[in-house]
C-alpha cells in the first residue's frame, strides 16, 4: 500500500514539474512533448496487451480511430470541445473493440499479432479509398476549444500539452492501480499459464476481452491527442508500420512500470526528430538495430536499468 502511494505521488509530481517546465520551453519542445505523451498513451495499450502475453501489430487501428473521431467530429458534427471529441473517439473505439475483441481474444502469439494487423489494415484500406476524407492525404482538424479556452486565441500548443499531461496523468494513475489489481495480475497469469487460470475459476476470455477493450480505448485517446496537437489526420495512422513503432516503443520501455512507455516514447520522438533531419535514410535502420540490442541485452526494457540500480543499492 505504501509503495503504491509513492508511485502515485511521483506521477503527480512529475506531471506538475513537466507542466511548469513547459511554460519556459520553446514551442518545438512543447509540441514534441505533446506528441511523445500521446504516443506513450497508445503504447500503454500495447503494454497492457503485452502483460497478458499478447503482441499487437495493429494498435494503430485504435490510434487512427481516435484521430479520425476528432477530425470527423469537428468537421461533420461541429463539435469543438477537445474533451467531447476525445470522448467521441473513445465511444466509437470501444464499440468497435467490443466486436473485434470477441474474435481476437481467441488467438495467441503470431495469430493475434497478424489478426490485429489485418483489422488495422482493413481500416487503412477503407480510409485510403475514401475520397471524401482526403484519401491518402487525410484532412485537417478544425480549431478546437477546451472548456472556456480557445486554441486559436490562446497558446494552442501549450493548451494541447496541458491537456495531454492531464489526460495522461489520469490514465497513468488508473493503470498503476490496474496493474496491481486482480484483473491486472490475472492478465499476467494468463501470459504465464492459461490452463491454471481456468482451473482457478477465472475465464481467460473475459479477462483478455476487458483488457483488450480498455487498451483500445486508451489507444484511441492517444490518437485523439495526436490529432488535436498535430491538427491533421491521415490513413497512415492505421498502417501496420505505425503499429510496429508502438511495439518498438513498448519493448524499448518494458512493461515494468507505468512511466516506462512515456519515457520510451519521449526518447523515440526526440531521436526521430533529429534522425529524420540528419540521416533520413537511416532512421529505420537505427530502430532495427536498437530493437535487436534491447532484445539481446535489455529484455525487460530500459526501465530495468532503473530497477537494477535500485536493487544493487539496497
Amino acid at each position, binding site marked *: 500500500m505504501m509503495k503504491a502511494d509513492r508511485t502515485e505521488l511521483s506521477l503527480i509530481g512529475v506531471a506538475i514539474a513537466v507542466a511548469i517546465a513547459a511554460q519556459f520551453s520553446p514551442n518545438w519542445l512543447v509540441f514534441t512533448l505533446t506528441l511523445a505523451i500521446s504516443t506513450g498513451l497508445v503504447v500503454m495499450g500495447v503494454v497492457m496487451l503485452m502483460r497478458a502475453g499478447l503482441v499487437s501489430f495493429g494498435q494503430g487501428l485504435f490510434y487512427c480511430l481516435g484521430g479520425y473521431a476528432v477530425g470527423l467530429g469537428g468537421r461533420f458534427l461541429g463539435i469543438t470541445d477537445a474533451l467531447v471529441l476525445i470522448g467521441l473517439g473513445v465511444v466509437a473505439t470501444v464499440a468497435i473493440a467490443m466486436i473485434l475483441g470477441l474474435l481476437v481474444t481467441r488467438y495467441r502469439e503470431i495469430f493475434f499479432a497478424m489478426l490485429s494487423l489485418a483489422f488495422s489494415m482493413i481500416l487503412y484500406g477503407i480510409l485510403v479509398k475514401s475520397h471524401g476524407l482526403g484519401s491518402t492525404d487525410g484532412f485537417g482538424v478544425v480549431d478546437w476549444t477546451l472548456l472556456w479556452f480557445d486554441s486559436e486565441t490562446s497558446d494552442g500548443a501549450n493548451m494541447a500539452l496541458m491537456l495531454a499531461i492531464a489526460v495522461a496523468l489520469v490514465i497513468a494513475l488508473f493503470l498503476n492501480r490496474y496493474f*496491481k*489489481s*486482480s*484483473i491486472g495480475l490475472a492478465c499476467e497469469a494468463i501470459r504465464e*499459464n492459461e490452463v491454471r487460470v*481456468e*482451473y*482457478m475459476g477465472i475465464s481467460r476470455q473475459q479477462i483478455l476481452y476487458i483488457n483488450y477493450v480498455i487498451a483500445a480505448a486508451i489507444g484511441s485517446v492517444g490518437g485523439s491527442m495526436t490529432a488535436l496537437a498535430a491538427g491533421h489526420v491521415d490513413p497512415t495512422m492505421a498502417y501496420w508500420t505505425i503499429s510496429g513503432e508502438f511495439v518498438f516503443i513498448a519493448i524499448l520501455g518494458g512493461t515494468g512500470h507505468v512511466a516506462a512507455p512515456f519515457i520510451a516514447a519521449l526518447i523515440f520522438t526526440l531521436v526521430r526528430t533529429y534522425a529524420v533531419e540528419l540521416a533520413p535514410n537511416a532512421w529505420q535502420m537505427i530502430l532495427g538495430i536498437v530493437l535487436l540490442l534491447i532484445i539481446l541485452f535489455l529484455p525487460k526494457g530500459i526501465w530495468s536499468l532503473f530497477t537494477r540500480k535500485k536493487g544493487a543499492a539496497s
Partner: protein
Amino acid sequence: MTEILKTEGLSRYFGAVTAAEDINVTITEGEIVGVIGSNGAGKTTFINMVTGYLPPSKGVISFDGKPIKGLGPRKLMRKGLTRSFQIPQLFLELPVIDNLSIALAAAEHKQFQMLRPVHTPERLKAAEEILEQMHITEYRDEMVTAMPQGARKLLDIAIAMLGNPRMLLLDEPTSGVSMEEKYTLMDTVMEAVRARGLTVLFVEHDMEIVQRYVTRVLAFASGVVIKDGPVDEVLADEQVQELVTGKQHKPAATGGDA
C-alpha cells in the same frame, strides 16, 4: 455416506485408439482413493475427463448428484471439484505470493476488480497460512522458477486447495520428486487434505505410497478399470500384479504418463 463423484459408462476414444472404456466409479464423500495403472492405462485420461479438460466420447459424470459432463474446468472449480497436475501448472515468472493471491481473488469471485490491489491483508494472511501448512514459506517472495520440483508440486496442490473445494484430484503428486522427498511431501499433502476434510482421488505409480495413504484403489489397464476395492485386496490381485504393479519386489518409480 453420501456419494460425491459418480461416472457411468465413461469412455474416450482418440480415433481408433481407446483411451478409456466404460468406466463406472462411485466415490463417497471423505474417501481417499488411489488410481494405479501402467503408462497409457487411461488414468490421466480419466482425470482429464472428470475435471473438464478432455470431453468424454460417451458416458455420464455426476458430481454431488448433478451431471457435470460438458462443464469446463472453471465451472467445476466453482462447484468444488479441483485438481493438481503431473507437471505443476504455475505462473513461472510471477512470485509465489502472487500465484496464491490471484487464486484467492478468483476464489472470492473478485478477479475483475481493477482499482483495489490484489494484495489485501486478508489474502496475504491466507496465502501465508497455506504456505506454512505446505512447508514452503521460504519461497514466499521468490519466482516459481527459483523453486525445486517438490516445492512446485506442493504449490500446485496448495493452489488447488484454495477456494474451499470438496474434492481434489491429484495427478501423480510424487512424480519427478526424489525418493527421499516423496514421503515428506505426501505427509504434508495428506495432513492438509485431512485438515480440510477433502475427498481425494490420486494417481500414483509408487505402490508403497499407495499402500500407505489410501484406503481404496482403482486399477486401470488398457483403458478399463480391472479392479476396484480395498487397497490390500487390489494389490494382491493376480491380474493387477501382472498388468499394473509388475513383480512386486520393488516399488516402481516410473516417471511420466502420457
